[in-house]
């Protein structure tokens, strides 16, 4: 009896003529995720089977699959021939030692002499014969033995469904550029968008020498953690030191964050165009901090020329974001105490509801194009 893993996918069945393409991307992503572990992936009507792996790797493979978007659920199953004795042996194997159960059968192979109900009854009866501690309960069973008869003369027998990461395969929804700060929010925002099938690239702004190398390293660590879900990632790193110094020198200090965010958005849009990203993604959550008011967003959004800006966390509370960041494994990295560029030159009383006219008046004191070009010249790309 060979162990296999059954992979069921989420919404791919909703797709029409594109379905083949979706399925191919999905398979490639699974291959990437399982790279380095012996296995074979085969597609069988509406699901994938992972076969020919070493049994000791089963936990490792399942852990990796949990991070592949597009998987709705998966099961570890025994693969046997469609011989009733063989199926019974497998059912015996996956059965609990005691408790109530039922047998559910799917019969894709309609040429099989027994129908689904008859197979379930036969296998269930035989199990009861050999184990007195089992009893049948079709309404509220403690476990279910699933029997899946495939067209190719094999049967899959299993007793559990594990929840997958859900979503769409990464690579089926275009490419986005994530503004990643080193805080808790932005990796969560990236994760949510990647879950809907988007390939991510990251952009990080630093203010060396006002901030240190550890802050940058922290962002690289965050990107690494995120890249497991996104099948790799490029991280673009840009220095905004001189921009902050110029704002500090020439503008009203209370507008530091407001003005800086406008520069960040402009730089991000330029980088996005360079790397082929079709949207920007930020970790902004409405009203979380001074700059994340709707007025603040209006101010930073108004510099964007073409791209949509996705802000998936807008409706989340901080504790909801923290919960997600723990689940994806970025929380412990995010809380390391290294400052990102936002806290240097931080005003005591930042403007919380900036009026666009005032912002523009402050910004007029700066040579915006020159500062942008200088910042773009510091661009460094790290392949994660």
């Amino acid at each position, binding site marked *: 009896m060979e162990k296999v893993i059954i992979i069921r996918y989420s919404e791919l069945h909703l797709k029409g003529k594109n379905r083949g393409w979706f399925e191919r991307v999905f398979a490639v992503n699974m291959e990437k995720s399982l790279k380095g572990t012996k296995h074979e992936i085969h597609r069988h009507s509406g699901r994938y089977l992972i076969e020919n792996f070493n049994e000791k790797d089963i936990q490792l493979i399942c852990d990796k699959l949990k991070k592949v978007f597009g998987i709705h659920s998966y099961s570890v199953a025994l693969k046997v021939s469609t011989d009733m004795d063989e199926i019974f042996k497998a059912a015996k194997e996956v059965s609990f030692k005691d408790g109530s159960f039922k047998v559910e059968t799917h019969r894709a192979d309609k040429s099989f002499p027994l129908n689904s109900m008859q197979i379930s009854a036969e296998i269930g009866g035989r199990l009861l014969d050999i184990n007195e501690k089992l009893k049948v309960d079709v309404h509220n069973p403690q476990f279910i033995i699933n029997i899946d008869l495939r067209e190719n003369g094999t049967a899959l027998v299993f007793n559990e469904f594990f929840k997958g990461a859900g979503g769409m395969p990464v690579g089926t929804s275009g490419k986005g550029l994530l503004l990643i700060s080193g805080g808790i929010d932005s990796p969560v925002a990236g994760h949510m968008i990647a879950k809907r099938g988007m390939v991510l690239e990251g952009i990080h702004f630093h203010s060396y*020498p*006002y901030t240190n190398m550890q802050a940058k390293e922290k962002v690289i660590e965050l990107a690494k953690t995120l890249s497991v879900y996104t099948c790799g990632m490029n991280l673009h790193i840009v220095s905004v030191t001189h921009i902050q110094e110029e704002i*500090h*020198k020439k503008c009203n200090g209370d507008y530091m964050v407001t003005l800086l965010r406008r520069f960040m958005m402009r730089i991000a849009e330029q980088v996005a165009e360079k790397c082929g990203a079709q949207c920007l993604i930020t970790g902004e959550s409405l009203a979380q901090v001074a700059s994340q008011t709707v007025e603040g967003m209006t101010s930073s959004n108004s510099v964007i020329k073409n791209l949509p800006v996705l802000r998936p966390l807008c409706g989340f509370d901080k504790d909801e974001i923290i919960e997600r960041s723990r689940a994806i494994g970025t929380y412990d990295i995010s809380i390391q*105490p290294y400052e990102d560029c936002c806290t240097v030159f931080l005003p005591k009383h930042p403007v919380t509801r900036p009026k666009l006219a005032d912002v523009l008046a402050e910004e007029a004191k700066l040579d915006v194009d020159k500062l942008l070009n200088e910042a773009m010249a510091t661009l460094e790309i790290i392949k994660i």
Partner: protein
Amino acid sequence: MIYLDNAATEKPDKKCITAAEKYLFEEYFNPSGLYKSGYNLHLELKEARRNILTRIADENNFSLVFTSGGTEADNQAVFCGGRRGNVVTTSGEHSAIFSAVNELKQRGIEIRFANLNSDGSVNEEHLLSLVDEKTSLVSVIHVNNETGAINDIFSIAQKVKEKNKYTLFHSDGVQAFGKIAFKLNNNIDLYTINAHKIGAIKGCGGLIKKKNLQIKPYLYGGGQEQGLRSGTENVFAVKCFEFAALDRYSKLEENYKKVSELNKTMRKLLDSELFTVLSSENASPYILSIAAKGVRGETILHEADDNGLIIGTGSACSSNQKKRYSRVVLSCGVDEITADGVLRISFSPENTLEEVKAAADILNKIVANRKRIMA
């Protein structure tokens, strides 16, 4: 590259490492082995122990337990010395003591912190007022690792013993050993030393303890180090430590004079318009704490680094505003703006006057430029 962060660690002394090399590749045996090669190493360790210990203490009254470094020795002193009542220490301790006593507090021991004088030395009077009949341990840093202030631990220990003769007295001597002249006396029960601050390698240190003092082990296992610190001895590191200690103590005075000269030159050359010197005149010359008013220390550190000068800050970087400043520097009564600009320059006898002159020049230029930008 000019390296002036010697209080963090010193460049290993090549001749000490070379001399100890044979303990890596030839004499690699376990000193607990009963065969001759093992036994010989046991004797080598004994010699190293004696040679290091006798630089600062009488071997009839003191013994030395090798540890993985200063932090472990400090932890052993705290957790094995402060087992009941209250523990008195200073606000100027290294984190190895500070964090350890905070853990002790979690375990139900009362911790009392003595205030500092403006130069970072402990306020003796305040410290003594905290000692009572229930004090099980007093720990006072010998040379403050941020300001270089020297505490007169011998006078303090004597007064502590006069108040409560059962109180154990510990001192963290990591920045004193091999740098300033002193001899331990009977009022000192426990004393921490470290190898890599005097040109040996990292991962090695020791806790000197009075011979008749009974303390519990901190690590349990095979019973090495008189049962007080189990774990196979790092013979190579210990021998490096021995050679470095012998070397440093053979020219202690000469080094002291040289480093004092470097320190004085640095003080003279730093622009007094830009920098405030926090270390007092009679601090250890090996450490010079300065502050650039209005410019963050870490920013200067990075820029100096980019210009080929390595120095330290007095502050640990943290986005938590309360933690951004060094707790030690704040305890000296320094305001937050000054504390934000604290830098630590620390010398070794290997540094030269030319290096110091160049370093002062770099620092003056950086801070003048930053002030212009930040103004």
